[in-house]
């Protein structure tokens, strides 16, 4: 399993869940190639050939003249028995010490390796219990378990998995500076200037009470950028806005490096860590869903 995860590490796979095929069809998701079966752990040679070789070797068209025993023996596509759905722990696209000295290797080791991993494992444990939640992508799972403000217990862990994935991508080594191109234009349009935005973002981070996140979101209905805060695990995905950047203001995100000095942490994030490249990419994608330009209505 570890090998498989290393090989497919960057992609997040939802491996086909249940065993009885009837269930799979009812839920309507594609059955992805099984990654393991009993006795074949860790032997994933190639994504294209399944691990349960024996099933394929005995692939013969069923013969109608055979007796029952023979037919059972030639049963096509012997299904592996112990597949379960799982969400993979995606690793950041940079090494743990790449963000030094602004975010230490130790912080990343604990934050990613223990907190984030803990959330992923809890999520998989929840999913192992509850069939209804199979088949959703992570985004959909968050929306469903948010339950319009009355979150189900899976919400916290699912949302935190997503939030942390998003957070690692919102940072990069050599980050900071300022955005460029269309994102800069939109920020200037909605906040006045980039330095106004930066000030507002940092102030919002400092006045947040308790644990939470600070976001730069693109609001779908108002068609503009805004700064949003959420408590605990809540994410703007839950009310259908499009997040572009996030800053983790839970104490575990900065305590090892900055102790209680939130101001320094927020400033360092803005000056040295934030990845405007990923914000730009997310903005470009968001424009497929939100039309920010004025409609070009011809006059005569």
């Amino acid at each position, binding site marked *: 399993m570890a090998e498989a995860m290393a090989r497919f590490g960057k992609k997040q796979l939802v491996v086909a869940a249940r065993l009885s095929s009837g269930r799979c069809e009812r839920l309507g998701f594609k059955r992805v190639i099984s990654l393991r079966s009993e006795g074949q752990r860790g032997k994933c040679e190639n994504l294209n050939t399944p691990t349960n070789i024996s099933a394929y070797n005995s692939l013969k068209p069923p013969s109608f003249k055979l007796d029952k025993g023979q037919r059972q023996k030639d049963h096509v596509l012997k299904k592996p028995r112990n597949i379960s759905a799982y969400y993979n722990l995606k690793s950041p696209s940079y090494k743990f010490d790449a963000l030094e000295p602004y975010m230490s290797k130790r912080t990343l080791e604990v934050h990613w390796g*223990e*907190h984030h991993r803990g959330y992923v494992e809890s999520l998989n444990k929840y999913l192992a219990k509850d069939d209804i939640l199979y088949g959703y992508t992570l985004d959909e799972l968050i929306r469903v378990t948010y339950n319009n403000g009355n979150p189900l217990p899976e919400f916290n862990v699912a949302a935190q998995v997503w939030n942390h994935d998003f957070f690692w991508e919102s940072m990069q080594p050599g980050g900071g500076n300022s955005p460029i191109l269309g994102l800069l234009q939109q920020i200037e349009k909605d906040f006045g200037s980039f330095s106004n935005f930066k000030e507002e973002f940092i102030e919002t981070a400092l006045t947040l*009470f*308790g644990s939470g996140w600070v976001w730069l979101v693109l609001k779908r209905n108002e068609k503009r950028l805004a700064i949003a805060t959420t*408590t605990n695990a809540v994410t703007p995905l839950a009310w259908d806005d499009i997040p572009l950047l996030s800053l983790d203001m*839970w*104490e*575990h995100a900065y*305590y*090892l490096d900055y102790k209680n000095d939130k101001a320094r942490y927020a400033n360092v994030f803005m000056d040295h860590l934030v990845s405007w490249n990923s914000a730009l990419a997310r903005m470009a994608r968001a424009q497929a869903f939100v039309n920010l330009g004025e409609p070009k209505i011809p006059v005569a």
Partner: protein
Amino acid sequence: MALRTFAKTLGVPSRVQQQLRGLQTFTLPDLAYDYGALEPAISGDIMQLHHQKHHQTYITNYNKALEQLDDAIAKGDASTAVKLQSAIKFNGGGHVNHSIFWKNLAPTKEGGGESPHGSLGWAIDESFGSLEKLIAKMNAEGAAVQGSGWVWLALDKELKRLVVETTANQDPLVTVGPSLVPLIGIDVWEHAYYLQYKNVRPDYLKNIWKVINWKYASEIYEKECPK
């Protein structure tokens, strides 16, 4: 009111003005023990940061908010007065909760961790079965708090019984029920344990019982619930 405006025209410094208008500000209470006295349950580093930085920040911001509130009330500015309520609940609650917390802790040499005797001990056995069961319940609830908050052993004055409650952020216990008196409060904000226990909050909760000051809790209980 006249005295206040008189003081302003004279250019009297604001702290004197505050005293003239009777605004009570708060200062950081001292601990009854050294920072390192609670080791190894809670490290000296954490105690020092927790007391000198976190608690002090709550007090500073609480005083600031009170000043602003006082101004707003004097001017009759209702919307500002209401807007300040969340800052007051947060920072004031932080001050109140932490003041209780320091008294809830004691080094083992001075009785920390010793089981409660007397009426509180009987009440615990009656309400929860045994001290171990109470500890298990509080640890479970404390570990389950999402994000930041506190877990409390409280006395319900009206119903005359002990309850275990949790509050979010720095909400004081009275926000859960006006007749609740806090006996033991455990801070489960990450700053209370992160440097030592990282993300393993259950370990922190298990170990903190070794330095809990039951004597203080018994005193409060006997005061509120005299035999």
